[in-house]
């Protein structure tokens, strides 16, 4: 048997003759504090290699150490923790709990719970749910969900609006969303407690009915109760901060915050400056729309200007104001006047916009069940229960079975039970004795243990024949909102180089008619529709072609003459081509290739 190789952070450092002993000794030293507790060691007997890691960036997790089938964490430890005599670091220092990395886990045999323990185990989970991270830990009953749904939810929690920081009124984030009345979830998990999620929640408890309604919740659409929204449900604010400073230029010139005078180059219109105060900055609480100037600013001329008749350089300043972004509106929330490091004046303006849910806004429960608003229904028309409870939200039953997000069903039942009892329910995953408790509290209060109820049609008052599953679920408003995305264009700006429409909503661009769309028109044989898309609605150009040499002629607008740069004043004819093709011809010419256009009569 050859010697075992030892690697430290991936580098071969030496060998050892009795690896088992070495590894055990290293671990003992780590537990007793002889070596840093950040060290992890792994022995692979198949390749006879030992890996020691101590570098930053490894994912590690804490586990209780088990010796001979007995966990080192004992009753008196727990007692002292409760009495706050013992802290987390003490447990690590005493070698009761240690952190393992992904590598060392390969050498470990970890028991899920106390009852599973046997002689072979090396570690014990503190709690099965500790294997979940912050995002996944927020999901109640995640052990009842299919894994893709949990993964999706872990991603979506990060997009949820809530109380993202508590000092938001003093901050100037370029973009920030704030949920108006965030609630702590009715059904919580232990990880929610540990991470203090309740202090900065990101959602609200909705009364949810699972039923179809006039087809307005097909394909994951949601139906919201209009009165709920008017009461402030899922309402949020959007903040955008604009900032600019008075730049100093070489030569002693500098920018100036002011209301630009009419002589300034690039003067907008009087209307655009109407919100500005004397100092050239908007007043707080004024309503501004896109195009309105927030900070009036002028800059010195970029080049030395032409000399006027008196022989002095005419100083014509440029307008460089900050305006409200295209498509946005709001109320000026705050104005900040400060200084840059260089001592120039710096201004920050924060604009606030209230966002009441509207069609197309995205919502999600905590089980990867996302959807967009398909209908906002007046409360009168929403179905109601015998007690007069009207749901805030109606989701489609088809959303549940194929995705197997049973956790949502459980959350709704548990949430309902919690609301009746008036206390929050624990929904920590891998907790087996929840079901009976919840069912009991429902039946005790005169509800069906399944969570189903009779609902009455809000429009006719008739009882709906089927029993409707109704409960309370925690829903999150995600930051994908219609107002930020809605867009259309008929005419608009074009690119300088290609004369084709610009790209993107922010640049008021066109919607791309792509390659595959083009293929479809070809396949249909719609020749003229295709030409319209690709030429008339894009970069149509009328080239004048010399009939002698086939090069593009020049139109002298001053003398109104058409001539060919090579052949002079010979016959030239207008030809409709795309500007992109004209560019191609120009580029070829620049490469010393002479492309000629041969003209013939068009039949």
């Amino acid at each position, binding site marked *: 048997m050859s010697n075992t190789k030892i690697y430290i952070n991936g580098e071969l450092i030496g060998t050892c003759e009795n690896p088992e002993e070495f590894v055990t000794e290293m671990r003992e030293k780590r537990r007793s504090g002889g070596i840093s507790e950040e060290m992890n060691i792994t022995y692979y007997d198949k390749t006879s290699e030992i890996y020691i890691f101590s570098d930053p960036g490894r994912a590690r997790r804490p586990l209780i150490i088990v010796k001979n089938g007995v966990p080192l964490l004992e009753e008196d430890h727990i007692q002292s923790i409760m009495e706050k005599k013992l802290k987390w670091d003490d447990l690590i220092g005493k070698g009761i709990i240690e952190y393992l990395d992904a590598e060392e886990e390969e050498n470990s045999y970890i028991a899920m719970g106390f009852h599973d323990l046997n002689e072979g185990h090396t570690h014990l989970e503190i709690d099965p749910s500790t294997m979940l991270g912050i995002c996944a830990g927020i999901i109640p009953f995640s052990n009842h969900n299919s894994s893709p749904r949990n993964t999706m939810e872990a991603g979506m929690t990060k997009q949820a609006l809530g109380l993202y920081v508590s000092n938001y009124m003093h901050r100037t984030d370029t973009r920030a969303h704030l949920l108006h009345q965030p609630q702590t979830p009715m059904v919580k998990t232990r990880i929610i407690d540990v991470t203090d999620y309740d202090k900065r929640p990101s959602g609200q408890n909705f009364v949810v009915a699972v039923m179809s309604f006039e087809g307005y919740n097909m394909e994951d659409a949601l139906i919201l109760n209009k009165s709920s929204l008017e009461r402030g449900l899922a309402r949020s604010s959007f903040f955008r901060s604009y900032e600019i400073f008075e730049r100093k230029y070489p030569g002693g010139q500098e920018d100036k915050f002011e209301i630009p005078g009419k002589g300034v180059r690039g003067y907008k219109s009087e209307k655009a400056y109407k919100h500005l105060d004397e100092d050239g900055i908007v007043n707080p609480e004024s309503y501004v729309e896109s195009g309105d100037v927030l900070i009036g600013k002028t800059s010195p001329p970029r080049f030395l200007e032409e000399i006027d008749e008196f022989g002095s350089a005419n100083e014509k300043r440029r307008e460089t104001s900050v305006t409200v972004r295209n498509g946005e509106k709001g109320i000026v929330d705050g104005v900040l006047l400060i200084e840059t490091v260089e001592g120039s004046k710096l201004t920050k303006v924060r604009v606030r916009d209230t966002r009441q849910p509207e069609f197309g806004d995205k919502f999600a429960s905590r089980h990867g069940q996302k959807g967009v608003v398909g209908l906002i229904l007046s409360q009168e028309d929403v179905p109601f229960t015998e007690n007069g409870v009207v749901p805030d939200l109606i989701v489609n039953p088809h959303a549940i079975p194929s995705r197997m997000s049973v956790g949502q069903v459980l959350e709704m039942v548990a949430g309902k039970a919690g609301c009746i009892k008036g206390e929050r329910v624990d929904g920590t995953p891998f907790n087996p004795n929840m079901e009976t408790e919840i069912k009991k509290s429902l039946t005790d209060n005169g509800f069906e243990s399944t969570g189903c109820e009779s609902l009455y049609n809000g429009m006719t008052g008739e009882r709906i024949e089927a029993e409707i599953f109704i409960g309370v679920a925690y829903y999150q408003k995600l930051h994908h909102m219609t107002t930020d995305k809605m867009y259309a264009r008929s005419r608009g700006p074009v690119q300088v180089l290609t004369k084709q429409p610009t790209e993107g909503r922010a640049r008021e661009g066109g919607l791309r008619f792509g390659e595959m769309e083009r293929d479809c028109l070809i396949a249909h*044989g719609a020749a*003229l529709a295709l030409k319209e898309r690709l030429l008339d609605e894009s970069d*149509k150009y009328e080239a004048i072609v010399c009939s002698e040499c086939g090069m593009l002629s020049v139109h002298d607008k001053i003398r109104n003459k058409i001539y060919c740069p090579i052949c002079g004043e010979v016959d030239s004819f207008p030809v409709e081509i795309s500007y992109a093709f004209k560019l191609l011809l120009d580029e070829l010419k620049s490469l010393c290739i002479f492309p000629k256009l041969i003209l013939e009569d068009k039949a």
Partner: protein
Amino acid sequence: MGDIDQKIMNKVIKIAKKKETNFPESYIDDIAEAYVRRELTDKELETLITKVKKAYERSKVESGEAIGTVAAQSVGEPGTQMTMNTFHYAGVVELNVTLGLPRLIEIVDARKTISTPTMAIYFDEDHRFDDEFVKKTASTIAKITINDVLDDFHVDYGQMNVEIVIGPEKVKEKHLEFDDIILDIEKSFKKHTIDIDNTKITIAPKLDKRNKSGIQIRDIRLLADKIRDLQISGVKDVIRVIIRKDEEWVLHTEGSNLKSVLKMEGIDQVRTTTNHIHEIYTVLGIEAARNAIIKEALNTLEEQGLSVDIRHIMLVADMMTADGTVKSIGRHGISGTKSSVLARAAFEETGKHLLNASIRGEVDKLTGIIENIIIGQPIPLGTGSVSIMMKK
């Protein structure tokens, strides 16, 4: 339908000619058959032909239809649903055959070497159920090396030779003759000293002028490998043969050599085939290659549960084989050899095509689709394929 009277056939052909039809032959056969089966009168026959003519002409593709684009879309769209995972089986469990998207790409790329060539060998009527004959043929097709018949193998670095012991039972098992093996060895190692002692053969390199410095250990090792890999039986390129009996005996092979197999006795030359299109092209010609492309592409798609109309694939195969050689679809094939400079430049290697065109002074007649899209003219297709003729 060979049993239809030639007289009736002539009659049908005559009426068809009178009606100015241009049916394929199979239509005439079918009409004639229907005429006999249904006992039609002559007048009814005439109406039948008129109606068939009408239906035939209505179902023909109209001129100006973008069949190429439609074919591309019809193959391309199901292609997106094809999984990249190559499920390695095709009827025969033991045989690994590339399937799915990789195989489809292989077909349209017209590869000269494909990743898993395989043959299906059928037998003629006399040997279709002849177990003994089939097994014997299988063993003659399969590649057998010295390694397969060895009892013992020894490299002696002291004596600087290689010692092999051939197992007589193994030789018998493979339907071989011991003397043939000896002959093969003698033929292949002419430049070596061969010492034969019953089944024990010792081979050593001869000392000649070239390797004066003596025989190196490396030489011995190379020789050892060479001896072990010496093919003593089988068809070249065929690595393995699997015998199957469904309704009759069929041999499936790993590796393909159509030319040699077709020469063998007792083989059904009509049904025996390979999945190697280029081989079919060299052995059987371009028409066979076209049919092979259609069959292979269609099977690949169908195996994935996708149904593409055969006519789309026929168009692809026609384009690939139109000029008598198998051309690939892509840079080196159809797209790369288009007549229009602009169309070629728009596809791939823009610079190369523009440069070459300028050197040669090429003229683009602007007859294709892509050229006209580039310059911004209506495409000569569909509604754009009509124009006004002026009286001179």
